[in-house]
């Protein structure tokens, strides 16, 4: 089961993302993002387990929720992916 992390500019946008995905049956877990991911310091993200990341990103686009980056967890490390 793949795990993804979508990062956002603020907790409010992360919460908007959580609601947007939740409304489409995609559950995400809201948390602080690891420090190395946020060059500008402090951010929030949504962790998705086993979700279709393309469907999730489409949902965010449709609802006008902007995100910063998308990562996939592979071999215990997060790798940024372009979508």
């Amino acid at each position, binding site marked *: 089961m793949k795990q993804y992390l979508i990062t956002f*500019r*603020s*907790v*409010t*946008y992360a919460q908007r993302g959580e609601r947007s995905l939740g409304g489409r049956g995609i559950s995400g877990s809201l948390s602080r993002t690891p420090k190395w991911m946020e060059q*500008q*310091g402090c951010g*929030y993200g949504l962790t998705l387990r086993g979700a279709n990341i393309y469907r999730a990103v489409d949902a965010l686009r449709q609802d006008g929720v902007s995100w910063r980056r998308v990562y996939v967890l592979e071999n215990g490390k997060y790798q940024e992916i372009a979508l």
Partner: protein
Amino acid sequence: MIYLDNGATSFPKPPQVVRAAEEAMVRAANPGRGGYKAAMAAAEIVFDCREQAAALFSCKPEQVVLTANCTHGLNIAIGSLFGDGSRVLISGFEHNAVTRPLYARGCKVKIAGRRLFCWEELLDSFRRELRQGVDGAVFTHVSNVFGYILPVNEMAAECRAAGVPFVLDAAQSAGSLPVDFGALGAEFIAMPGHKGLLGPQGTGLLLCGDPGKPLLFGGTGTLSREKTMPEDLPERLEAGTVNVPGAAGLAAGIRLVRGMTPEKIFARGHGQTMACGRALEEMGYRVFTGPHQAMTLSFQGKADCEEIAEALGSRGIAVRAGLHCAPLAHESAGTLEKGTVRISFGHDASPAQTNALLRALGA
């Protein structure tokens, strides 16, 4: 006590509001800062408040900025749009929360509409001033002194047609009259959380169609390495810790208002206001009522207005007397010297309240 001072704040707060605020104080830490359970609980409370407001006022949650009160929101809005020398059009019924920030910033204030309850005169002069050229407009939805409902949909349409940015002061209308952010097209709509929305004192909302300029600078919980405030709303305009218990109570208050519906709240309050006005007139008081009346009215008697309010207070009736922080409105209505006694009904308006007031006045 019979409470008829809802124009100042709603009181007493509904039990749901009290419980929500109390629970937040024992369950929620600082929102948007940590990632632990109590911090995330606080973030959830604050976001819930934004969602409730967004649903009631037809905007997005991130457009809802939490403020300390309506005055705070108006100061952000006015500071964002206007500066020294800006020509700003206002109505003749504005509160000091509008006029003082404008004068403090060196704006050139133009006034349209001085006749109480007369939409035609207001719209004529408003259009005339717009044609002559202004940099923006700020106007109230309802006069806090007289309960006069201004034709804000028409004024907004005139501003949009002229390409003039505007700010709506919804201090006396949020929760009892339709306020549709998307349809109005305002740059900003400011409102208290503690009046018609039934939240705790010290809460307010600023609905933003413009990124705005921060009034306060400081921590926002994100993008901490940046030397400037974030570009994104709402954090851009919310430096420092927000009032989490206040947001919890306000969310509960907005839920109540949405459940009751602003239309029904208005119908009850307006009905009692008009009944009260008719009875006061029969008793010989000078009553200021008209065709566009909300849930508030002013009156004058033979005695000084402060004496009337004090006498009512001693009989357990809470009303407000004086200028109500709106000297411009009194100047427009010709009541600046004497002031008025103001009665303002709330979501719980009832004939029992009207009858108690009239009995106390000797009916």
